């Protein structure tokens, strides 16, 4: 008993010491910690991305090591990564950021957290897809409306998003989002609201436009947390919903469903994943070399081959999955004024969350 008590007392003493130490010693130890990994171990590049899932992060780290880059990937959702880059702008931790779409990057740029840089492969990409100054396009992704083609024939299927809530047969048969936190959901609304631009309307959108949003939420079946749209299509709960182009083939296989996508007459919104140099990086030269390497035709081609993506780099497209390249060749891109969208998206999300989501 006595021994036990002594032991307990000793343990607590250590705890208390740690308690005091943790508080008072933190300023001292932080100096050591900050200089060691960030500056000391030299050339490790810190890369922020939202595109590290499904083994992409591991693949890239290994490939980069082969090419002589030591990188550390920090994965975060698009909104999280954006907020993190902006919050850290006075003392940046990241050297490079990639994977975020043009909407996110234009926010980061507006906050002054990006350093202009023209990569070596700038001539091989369509400059229209980015700002031509700080962030540069890597991968294209179409944001589509897809429906269960086993249940609905091509003639009977919807032709546009607006059909979902104007035609009775689709009401309650489509999945609608329950939050606007994701990039895909925001792009769907960018595509819908852009059609109703009206500078005298609320937040630059006409009343008619807001009515569409209202109807979208009123008639859709709310998404279920942790249950994929494809799972719900497979079980017959719903027949259609939003989907980014890159995931379709994979999910069709996993859930054993077939999906047909809709190309509205106005076109399809594209999400373009970008790469950029972080302002204030202490490893600028190395970071620039990494951007040059990662966006190059070879690496983008391999990436596309491995992960079924659609590279923006024209020379890389030869290596990409031909089905994917063909799909994008025929695809009509919706003409969206991204500057207008970026300026208003925050307010739109707020209005929709507060007024229209039920």
């Amino acid at each position, binding site marked *: *008993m*006595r021994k*036990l*008590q002594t032991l*307990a*007392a000793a343990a*607590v003493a250590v*705890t*208390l010491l*740690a*308690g*005091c130490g*943790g*508080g*008072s010693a*933190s*300023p*001292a*130890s*932080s*100096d050591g*910690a*900050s200089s060691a*990994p*960030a500056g000391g*171990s030299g050339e490790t590049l*810190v890369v922020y991305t939202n595109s590290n*899932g*499904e083994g992409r992060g*591991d693949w890239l780290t290994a490939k980069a090591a082969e090419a002589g880059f030591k990188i*550390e990937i920090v*994965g*975060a*959702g698009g*909104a999280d990564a954006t*907020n993190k880059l*902006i*919050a*850290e702008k006075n*003392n940046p*931790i990241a050297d490079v950021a990639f994977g975020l779409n043009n909407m996110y990057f234009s*926010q980061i740029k507006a906050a002054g957290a990006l350093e202009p840089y023209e990569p070596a492969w700038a001539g091989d990409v369509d400059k229209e897809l980015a700002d031509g100054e700080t962030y540069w396009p890597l991968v294209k992704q179409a944001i589509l409306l897809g429906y269960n083609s086993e249940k609905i024939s091509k003639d009977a299927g919807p032709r546009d998003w607006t059909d979902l809530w104007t035609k009775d047969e689709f009401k309650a048969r489509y999945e609608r989002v*329950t939050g606007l936190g994701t990039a*895909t959901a925001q792009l769907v609304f960018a595509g819908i609201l852009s059609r109703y631009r009206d500078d005298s309307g609320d937040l630059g959108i006409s009343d008619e436009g807001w009515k569409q949003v209202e109807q979208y939420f009123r008639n859709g079946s*709310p998404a279920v*947390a*942790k249950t*994929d749209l*494809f*799972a719900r299509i*497979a*079980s017959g709960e719903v027949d259609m919903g939003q989907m980014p182009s890159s995931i379709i083939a994979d999910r069709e296989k*996993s859930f054993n469903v077939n999906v047909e996508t809709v190309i509205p007459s106005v076109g399809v919104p594209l999400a373009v994943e970008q790469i950029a140099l972080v302002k204030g990086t202490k490893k600028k030269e190395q970071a620039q070399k990494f951007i040059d390497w990662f966006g190059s035709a070879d690496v983008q081609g391999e990436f596309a081959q491995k992960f079924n993506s659609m590279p923006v780099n024209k020379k890389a497209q030869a290596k990409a999955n031909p089905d994917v390249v063909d799909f994008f060749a025929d695809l009509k891109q919706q003409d969206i004024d991204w500057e207008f969208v970026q300026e208003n998206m*925050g307010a739109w*999300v*707020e209005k929709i*969350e*507060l*007024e229209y989501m*039920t």
Partner: protein
Amino acid sequence: MSGTSVRSMARSPFVLVVGAVLTWFIAAFLVWPNLNILLATFFPDGSFSGRAAEKLFSSQRAIKALGNSFLLAVALSVTVNLVGIFIVLVTHYFRIRGSRILFLGYASTFIYGGIVLAAGYKFIYGDKGIVTSLLVKMFPGMDPGWFSGFFAVLVVMTFATTTNHMLFVANALKGIDYQTIEAAKNLGASPWTILRRIVLPMLKPTLFAVTILSFLTGLGALSAPQVLGGRDFQTITPMILTFTNSPTSRDLAALLAVILGLATILMLAVMSRLERGGTYFSVSKVSSALQKQDITNPVANVVVHAAAYILFAIYTLPVVLIVLYSFADGAAIQTGQLSLGSLTLDNYSRVLTQQSGLRPFIVSVVYSALAALIAVGGLLFVARLLQKYRNWVATAFEYLLHIPWILPSALLALGLIVSYDHPNPLVGGAVLTGTTVILLIAFVTVKIPFTLRMLKASFASVNSSLEEAAAIMGAKTLYMFRRILLPLVLPAAAAITALNFNSLLDDYDTAIFLAHPLVQPLGLVIKANTDGAEGVEGVANTFVYTVLLMVITGVTMYLVYGRAGRRGTSPKRGRALPPVSSAAPPPAVTAVSGEDSKLPAAPAR
């Protein structure tokens, strides 16, 4: 309570040292960063606008969601207490057959929670769930979607959040002096009267503390309403999270968080008031350990046994299914079809053979352990002082220490970044962003309110006469703290440490903003592997990580609590009053004169 004036408090060097450290910590890590982020949020251009309030209160959805959160908080405060007290009594107070097994079943909430728990319940009671299928076969007219909305959320969250009862209320129950119960029996009190008039009143400080926690859990409910709430019962937390992430709407998030925070503080004030003035310890000369009680009425006995085992089934079924489903593929999990033949180890090999391997697990274990130990170690002194000295200074400190309950962790993290991304005199001119320390600070900070509440409650049930006796014998403050108070609150402190540790293991909200890029904790890896948009494997990975975390947290609970529990069962008498025998000779206890003649269990109200 003597010495409650500020002046007498300032005379003790011990108080002054703890006070100085505490003041610095509160100023540097609780007030300054959060003030910074709130100012930036509410005064974006240096002037205040009522925009946020105007927007929020004109939104039907926001008001309804806010109302739902409050409804859930109030309802949970009641239901969790009912279920929690019942399971504590059947495992620790009444003589129930198989109570060890029952304990293990009820303890399953120690090791898991969140979205997977909600999913686990859905596998059983959801529209395609096992129980629902059975019921529909029996009653063909039944609605398969019966388990949704407020009712379902309340049921799931009630059973999911009895952890604090199992740990702290059970612990307080063990401290009850059996002599008082025997005396009541001799006077002819029925088991029901004893329970109502003696046992429950002694548990009050702990019950007040866990009630606040239940209220808070209800207010912050996220995953259960998302999975089971359906269209009609959505809560405010998802909206807060969305708005936190959007820089232009962050004022709305902050306002909502402040509303919930104020409600919590109000609850805290009410509970503190109720707690004040009671005597929650035994004042008999020689106390003895609690013995289990028979339920004498045979009908009541059968009913209690049946209820206990039904609850056992409710608690354990989801865990079993989650473990089973973690071996199934992602599509099967989401469509709810489970066949025993399709269970493989693929999910586990995929998760465990990633490049990052075990490293994130180790990082998280080290961070969580350090943070848990620092929070409990540091607050042991603070909680004691706040419990002992009751004046405006102590009250002010106490409320300040609850700041982390007011703001969502993402805002706390952003506050730390904007406050310490440049040399700051508050921390000796150091830059904290980009270091490994900042995440530790955040982890410690977010655990302060919970730790403080539970520690204070456990100090409240310590008999102050022990301390007075030691003081009369000439014991110094620290000696007294070490030899008398500490051994008495140690079981509770250990349980708090374990819970803190468990809850930090898979933290994402804080870590995403503050983690050092080369020392990334588990939460980030889990997120990368489980996010909805990350493929079919994501959902399967969620289950695998949950099971892996169950293993880690299960081991922790065993190490910390299982052993303490065992120590408590064998030499009970020795444990009940260890300090008396070593610190002060037993006769000194008679210093508590006069009071021991009356029944001690009727606290002054």
